[in-house]
């Protein structure tokens, strides 16, 4: 069976294909960490670790914030995206229901005015 995933999900899987990047996510699941701390943990140069962080950041798996000279990394806004996607589906459900309801309401109104017409005759 062929399965299609949205482009951003493909990017997320590509980001996760690297053991260092998976390690960074595991580390950030425990606590936020600065770029320097992560470089230390994974025994990499700052430039090297920054490249990995950039890949994770692009997919929304990690977000970073700079305060003064320290850039802190934490698990990303993916949950918010998930919530937005759910709310959009929920809205689509109600919108589809209300479109059908419109048709019934119209029909009821027509019946009502026909009946009112008959009563007047």
């Amino acid at each position, binding site marked *: 069976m062929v399965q299609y*995933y949205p482009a951003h999900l493909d990017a997320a899987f590509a980001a996760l294909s690297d053991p260092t990047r998976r390690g960074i996510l595991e580390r950030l699941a425990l606590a936020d960490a600065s770029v320097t701390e992560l470089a230390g943990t994974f025994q990499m140069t700052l430039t090297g670790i920054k490249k990995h962080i950039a890949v994770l950041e692009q997919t929304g798996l990690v977000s970073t914030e700079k305060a003064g000279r320290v850039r802190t990394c934490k698990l990303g806004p993916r949950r918010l995206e998930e919530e937005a*996607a*759910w709310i959009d589906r929920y809205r689509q459900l109600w*919108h*589809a229901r209300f479109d059908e309801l*419109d048709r019934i309401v*119209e029909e*009821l109104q027509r019946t009502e005015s026909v009946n009112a017409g008959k009563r007047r005759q």
Partner: protein
Amino acid sequence: MTNPTTVERKSERELVVTRTFQAPARIVFEAWTKPDLIRRWWTPKSFGITFVSCEADVRTGGTYRFVFSHPDFEQPMAFFGRYLEVTPHSRIVWTNEEGADGPVTTVTLEEKDGRTLLVLHELYPSKQALDDAIASGSTGASGAPEQFELLDEVLGTWLSS
């Protein structure tokens, strides 16, 4: 042209849906309270869900039980609860008891110049309950898998190990 439907997560445990109908409130109320009419619009064709059965005793203290089927469900799914309040042409309040932490849903109808503003308000017992509903991917009508499900599984395995 149909009127827009808006949805807002109003607070940590509330969702609010709004929509205007080009008809008086008594007509909209009728379509919400007669089972024969409910079954014609509650399961939109575009969502692939169909009613297996639709029982609703729409009055204060009455109960409802909707059973749906969907190509993705192995078994039909039942949605049920009680009407806490039914006030003709203006207000319907019901519970959603198919799950442990279901919301209480309130629909209000407000008529103005022959048009009706419908506000549907879902109040969950806690922030966690609404977060869980969102995380489950179910919108209460379709069991279609969330696009994030697979990724969650993968992440969940690592992060919890």
